[in-house]
């Protein structure tokens, strides 16, 4: 077994980055995720693995440092919280347009604007539908435990390189600040340029070899026909993600009449709600999307054929509910899909969820 620790989610992101052979972290402090860079700076990985850790002058600089380093094939990442991610949105779009791998961690806080430093899930739309401009997608992973904060760093990089596309860990202040037991991953060595070229193809600008053309990293294409073919290639890639990368988890869905759908910290709360509801004799289950993009449409469409209703539980005004409605309606089902949530940094309690379920679905 690996190394068992009691750590905060944010600290685990830093530790997992060092251990998975990350080449560089570029960031700018913001609550509630500042422990990511604090931990990295305290660990001084440049002495241990050679990993670069740099506090940039802003979020805009951080994401463009990520863009540059990713262009050379390096395994690089940044982290921020909601307002900081908005500042990075342009850079993220460029990275997606230039087809480069990188990992972005968003430890969400409440918005809009500077909002609050308390936890929120209000960046669901931003993460899964765009954020920056243009037709692009991020691979979005939503951890619901400190252990998954560890596991998804490696997974995020793996998927980012597989698809040459930015991956995002979408978490929130609750999981970032919370301590739980975690088994840390084994150390993996950082990859050399040759290993990156061998494993992922020679697209990186890490030294031109005589046997190939120049590699050019850009999102710009002035020829519309060529740009459209780029767009079509991106869409093919997103389609492949939708076919191969959907991840989700179910709890007590087999005999369930009502399904809660929740991700991240809301899903933890809903696990308790399922227990409370079952204790009252209500047949309730939980579906937890792990990838928010690609979204688990098929399992929801399957459940829609047999259940009496869905309730999404989100720390926002109702964002994922739209995807659940679309997915549930795929089989022309008329099963009701309702939403319950809290905003402004308030976390719903397990009991509130059960009350909402009763009011909005069971007694409705």
């Amino acid at each position, binding site marked *: 077994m690996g190394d*068992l620790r*009691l750590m905060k989610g944010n600290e685990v992101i830093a530790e997992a980055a060092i251990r998975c052979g990350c080449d560089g972290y570029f960031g700018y402090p913001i*609550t*509630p995720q500042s422990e990511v860079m604090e931990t990295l700076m305290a660990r001084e990985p440049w002495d241990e693995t050679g990993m670069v850790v740099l506090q940039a002058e802003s979020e805009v600089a951080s994401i463009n440092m990520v863009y540059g380093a990713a262009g050379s094939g390096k395994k690089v990442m940044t982290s921020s919280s909601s307002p900081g991610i908005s500042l990075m949105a342009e850079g993220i779009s460029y990275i997606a347009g230039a087809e480069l791998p990188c990992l972005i961690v968003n430890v969400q806080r409440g918005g809009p604007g500077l909002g609050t*430093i*308390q936890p929120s899930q209000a960046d669901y739309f931003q993460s899964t539908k765009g954020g920056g401009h243009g037709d692009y997608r991020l691979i979005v992973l939503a951890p619901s435990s400190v252990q998954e904060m560890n596991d998804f760093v490696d997974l995020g990089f793996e998927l980012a390189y597989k698809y040459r596309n930015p991956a995002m860990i979408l978490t929130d*202040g*609750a999981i970032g*600040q*919370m*301590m*739980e*037991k975690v088994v840390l991953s084994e150390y993996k060595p950082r990859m050399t340029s040759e290993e990156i070229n061998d494993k992922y193809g020679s697209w990186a600008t890490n030294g031109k070899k005589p046997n190939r053309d120049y590699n050019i990293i850009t999102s710009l294409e002035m020829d519309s026909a060529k740009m459209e073919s780029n767009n079509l290639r991106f869409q093919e890639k997103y389609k492949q993600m939708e076919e191969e990368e959907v991840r989700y988890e179910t709890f007590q869905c087999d005999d369930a009449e009502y399904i809660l759908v929740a991700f991240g*910290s809301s899903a*933890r*709360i*809903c*696990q*308790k*709600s399922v*227990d409370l509801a079952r204790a009252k004799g209500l047949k309730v289950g939980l579906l937890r999307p792990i990838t928010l993009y690609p979204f688990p449409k098929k399992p929801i469409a399957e459940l829609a054929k047999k259940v009496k209703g869905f309730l999404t539980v989100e720390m926002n005004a109702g964002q994922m509910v739209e995807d659940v409605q679309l997915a549930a309606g795929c089989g022309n089902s008329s099963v009701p899909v309702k939403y319950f949530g809290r905003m402004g940094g308030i*976390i719903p*309690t*397990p*009991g*509130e969820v059960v009350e909402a379920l009763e009011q909005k679905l069971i007694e409705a």
Partner: protein
Amino acid sequence: MTEEIIIAGFGGQGVLSMGKILAYSGVMQDQEVTWFPSYGPEMRGGTANVSVIISDTRISSPILHEFDTAIILNQQSMDKFEKTVKPGGVLLYDPNGIVNPPTRTDINIYKIEGTKIAADLGNVKTFNMVVLGAYLKAKPIVKMESIRKGLEKSLPERHHKLIPLNLEAIEAGQEKLEAVNEVSV
């Protein structure tokens, strides 16, 4: 066994560290734990609280609205958390600075003169360990051996020389717990 605890008081009283030592002690005896702090604007003099869950089984929600035990160290926290103790649960408080003592009759209420006892021990910083000791007397959910290991894990090595003093404070707290109201369960 699942024990859901809220520890609440002023920043600087050692609320978060007390929770951390408790959580580490749970880890030391192979239990599942979560430690969820209030974070952000809290600082020395402001309010601070942490919820700790220790369980033999997988923990679902780390965020709770009612608790088996509330450890309350100032009036603001009393006003906020007295009502969140489950019927039959435990409320432990330090009367120092408490103007309105708890009034519920359906819970077990204990008090500990933590501030005074820590001062008598010659180190007011041991306050939180005195309170931890009192809690463990009321609810012996973790073994003393695990607490000792938990202290070793959560304190940086340069502070390990303080472990005997901390253990002494815990024992003092265990000895001096006072029952205010006890309900039969």
